């Protein structure tokens, strides 16, 4: 197991290295780093000082080393707009985004799993057909459009829920979160629903396909032959088998959701790092952009690593293979 995790860790570092190289090439070789890191308002002396500090007068490989050193020590420049270190700015906004992402994930699982299990268990029923039709919408409607409709219906027309900003936050177990207050939860509902829509459809379809496929397997019949009730067969035997692909997909989707939070945050004025990056792009606040990209890439790699490890924990066959190989 340790060997396995170590090997995956190595792979992650390789990907991280490649990504840092890509960001570097993007920023330094394709873009103009002077423009990226030095505020347009800076005067000539300041510019030259900054160029020297950033090592922009050195050859490209040396610049890359500087860049890496900066990245490793957490120094990714200062935001032009907020005049605080870009990384710090990102870290301030990170919790709100994570909260939104996690809430969306929970929501899509809480609705997608039961819907998928039901649709797989009773494929011919009318409710199942409604579920499947709904999931097609979840796939093809653009996320921002769904967000607009949610606002139009639930905020503008019905006036049930707030549509902008994060509500009051409180602390639960030392974590500052919207889940602690009523207003926080109210503000969270629409954005989370919006962000979960695509995933909900995906999880529903995946679960349904898994249930249908597994119900035909011999092990299900055999479990029934032992006298187990349908409930145990479904929720222990079948569920544990479909859990493997679902965990994988949830893991992969975690990254997708994190990225698509950009859209949701913009629509619902959610003060997370997605909104920050869009604002930064519009304002050409480039240090923030670079910091954001690196943070997101690292989060991605961590998520992928966790998924791989989880996958091996869930599937004894993979675990064994990897221990051998």
């Amino acid at each position, binding site marked *: 197991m340790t060997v396995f995790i170590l090997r995956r860790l190595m792979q992650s570092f390789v990907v991280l290295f490649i990504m840092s190289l890509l960001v570097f090439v993007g920023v330094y070789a394709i873009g103009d780093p002077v423009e990226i890191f030095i505020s347009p308002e800076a005067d000539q002396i300041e510019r030259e000082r900054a160029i020297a500090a950033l090592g922009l007068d050195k050859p490209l490989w040396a610049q890359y080393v500087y860049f890496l050193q900066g990245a490793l020590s957490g120094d990714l420049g200062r935001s032009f707009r907020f005049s605080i270190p870009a990384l710090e700015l990102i870290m301030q906004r990170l919790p709100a985004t994570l909260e939104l992402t996690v809430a969306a994930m929970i929501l899509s699982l809480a609705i997608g799993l039961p819907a998928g299990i039901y649709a797989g268990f009773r494929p011919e029923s009318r409710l199942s057909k409604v579920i499947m039709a709904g999931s097609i919408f979840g796939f093809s409607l653009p996320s921002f459009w769904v967000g607009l409709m949610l606002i139009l219906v639930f905020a503008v027309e019905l006036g049930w829920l707030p549509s902008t900003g994060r509500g009051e936050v409180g602390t639960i177990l030392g974590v500052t979160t919207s889940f602690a207050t009523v207003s926080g939860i109210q503000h969270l509902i629409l954005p989370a629903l919006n962000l979960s829509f695509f995933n909900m459809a995906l999880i529903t379809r995946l679960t349904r396909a898994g249930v249908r496929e597994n119900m035909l397997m011999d*092990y299900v019949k055999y479990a029934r*032959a032992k006298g187990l009730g349908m409930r145990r067969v479904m929720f222990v035997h079948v569920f544990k088998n479909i859990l493997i692909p679902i965990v994988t997909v949830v893991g992969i989707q975690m990254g997708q959701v994190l990225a698509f939070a950009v859209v949701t945050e913009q629509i619902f004025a959610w003060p997370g790092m997605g909104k920050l990056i869009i604002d930064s792009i519009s304002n050409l606040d480039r240090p923030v952009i670079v910091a954001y990209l690196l943070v997101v890439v690292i989060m991605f790699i961590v998520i992928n690593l966790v998924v791989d490890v989880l996958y091996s924990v869930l599937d004894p066959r993979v675990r064994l293979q990897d221990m051998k190989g």
Partner: protein
Amino acid sequence: MTEPTLSVTDLRTWFDTRVGMLKAVDGVSFAVDKGRILGLVGESGSGKSVTGFSIMGLVDPPGRIAGGSIRFNGRELVGLPDEEMRALRGSRIAMIFQDPMMTLNPVLRVETQMTEAIFAHEKVTEAEAKRRARDALGQVGIPSPEERLKAYPHQFSGGMRQRVAIAIALLNKPDLIIADEPTTALDVTIQGQILYEVQKLCRQTGTALIWITHDLSVVASLADEICVMYAGRMVEQGSVDDVLDRPMHHYTLGLIGSVPSRHRKGQPLVQIPGVMPSLLKLPGGCSFRLRCTRADAACTEEPPETSPAPGRKLRCFHPATAVPA
């Protein structure tokens, strides 16, 4: 005279498929007494497994029991409510499935899959269930059962898995075990061992056993009674010695002729000409008639079930062996 543990009368199990009504089992009768072993033989597709599943109440849709009766310990199983049938499955009637590789759930520990079979029928403590699982593994000759309980199915060889399946069948000391070709996947030495152990167990515990196979030599060494099936129908039945020594149905005769034997060394093996017709396109009358050397005009009628001698049953107009006086 006490009632047999199981008596099946004129069982019909039909599958309503898109291409027509597939009569997988169409008129099968037999009985098994306490502590006795019935060999159910017939070539692939003759309906042996479906007969077993019918008794277990596990016929998959679009199949259904279209007629006949299954009496178990004096109780009619056809039409029994789901919950009552579930309570019998795995506790009073156990089944060992055909394919040992596919029947155990790959993602659950062997321990879980064993103890759940106990918990489904009895309220016992965790420790007690575990003890019984361990004992059952020991009983079928699995070394260091304590450790093996913690393992997953893929960590067992095919033969070991089949033993696990047998152990699970024994867990609740059932009155009837249906074993569906449990030894075909095994090599000859292990097969011999398992046959010997199973036979011993039946005699000791008084469990009735239905042994499904297409291997006549297994039946000869193991069973008390034999029931020969062809294309969904019982064609011949009687005590093993009787039927194998004096086969009356031409299909049984063919089967015996195609088994290599010491007594007939040097003689060519006889092949039954042709193949079993599709169950959807059976010829009218005796379904064996297109392959039978003795077929004549009479055979275009359906041969009725007769009892040419005490303890024998037959469906043939022209018995191959003279009826003993």
